[in-house]
């Protein structure tokens, strides 16, 4: 019973939060609702007994949405509403509604017809982390390593892009200006 109450509470919260993300005109509301929604999603993982994934959801999205905030801070006056430049409201709403329904249909059709079952059902007595580790390092080893290489490449690219200005700490810049 409590599980059901928790599920519906989290569902309403998550849907409400992401609703605010889409419909709000204030960047600050949207970003805060995004962070809230991401954290509330972890509730579902906890309900399903996937503690590790739930915590990872919180940890990863705290940092990720924090970076979005940093951009929001640089690009917008977050205390003011943003003027949206939408010319063809009806077409946009119809198309987005249709595409949303289409995606829901695509995702739900196999669930409805096959009664999907878990490929790797949880085993009692084996921890979350051990099970994820077993699957990641046996069946999904190649995609896992590929993802690691991709992230490494992205990191090196990021460092190379900003490397030019890396040695210019504020004090160095002032010294350079003084010399001129």
């Amino acid at each position, binding site marked *: *019973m*409590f599980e059901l109450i928790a599920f519906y509470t989290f569902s309403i919260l998550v849907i409400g939060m992401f609703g605010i993300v889409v419909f709000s005109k*204030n960047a*600050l*509301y949207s970003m*805060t609702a995004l*962070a809230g929604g991401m*954290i509330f999603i972890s509730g579902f993982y*906890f309900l399903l007994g996937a*503690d*590790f994934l739930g*915590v*990872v959801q*919180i*940890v990863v999205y*705290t*940092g990720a949405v*924090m*970076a979005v*905030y*940093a951009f*929001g*801070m640089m690009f917008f006056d*977050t*205390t003011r509403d943003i003027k949206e430049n939408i010319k063809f409201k009806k077409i946009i709403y119809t198309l987005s509604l249709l595409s949303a329904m289409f995606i829901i249909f695509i995702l739900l059709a196999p669930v409805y017809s096959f009664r999907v079952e878990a490929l790797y059902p949880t085993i009692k007595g084996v*921890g*979350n*982390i051990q099970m994820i580790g077993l699957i990641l390092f046996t069946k999904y080893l190649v995609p896992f390593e590929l993802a690691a290489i991709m992230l490494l490449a992205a990191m090196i690219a990021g460092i190379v892009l900003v490397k030019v200005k890396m040695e210019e*700490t*504020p004090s160095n810049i002032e010294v350079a200006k003084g010399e001129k």
Partner: protein
Amino acid sequence: MNETALIIETVIKAVIGLAVIAGMGAFATFIERKVLAFMQRRLGPMHVGPYGLLQLAADGIKLFTKEDIIPQNVVKPIFILAPVVGVTSAFVAIAAVPYFPQFTLFGYTIHPIISDINVGLLFVMGAASVGMYGPLLAGLSSHNKWALLGGARAVIQLLSFEVVSGLSILAPLMMIGSLSLIDINDFQIGGITNWLVWKQPLAFVLFAIAGFAETNRTPFDLIEFEAEIVSGYATEYSGMRWGLFFVGEYANMITISALVSIIFMGGYNPLWIIPGAIMMLLKVSFWIFLFLWVRAAWPHVRPDQLMWVCWKVLMPLALINILITGIVLV
């Protein structure tokens, strides 16, 4: 029926935990003023009650009865939400921290932990880092340049310490093989020589430094540094809303102290003739004292110095530590 009993037990534990930690946090503010005064050859609060002990009550009355000011151009819902986020995440984090060994009361065994999930440590770290949203939201919604600067500093602070704290505890976790704080505690049973601090001194130092950054304590309290940005994110706050931020900060300090004690300093295992619960209290008190001591003894760092030290010094050290631990374990 069993489920209902579990819910009731959890609720009781949560209420007790909340009350005790909030009380300890309030008391820590008094201790902080006394310790700082002692180190600076002052007396500190002396007028209210014996040795100024009732200053605590006076401060509480002041905070609760102050007029609640919400400035004109703020984003009101977010402005109200920000202190609540800060304090809630600090208290959610304590849900997975075991403070004492289990004991029996009226023939009923009590585990003094609100929820023993098997990834306890990660949960505590994650929930505590959500706490940085408090200053960030306050800074962004305040419509004040000092507050905005404080919020910007909160972002770089999170992005700096998160990496160090995560990587530094990875090495001890590799030795223990579990993320549950109870397992981590049980790994160190049997005397001082079994404490992890002797096997992982580097990780211990790194985690302590990251802990200081996480709780915005002095060498890294750049998001509310008076001399540079007035009061940072809290510039526009007054009364109890301002108080909530500080209850959250002190709750975070207690959590970090408990984490360091459990991971590196033997946790709640009894030592010699001192029972485990007392040991835990002593260690947490020592860490709180250390937080205050550092505040009295060290100057602040600049934001760019914090990023420099975290990414260029501490992170490589943590990685080397993990590498060496891995080689030794294999």
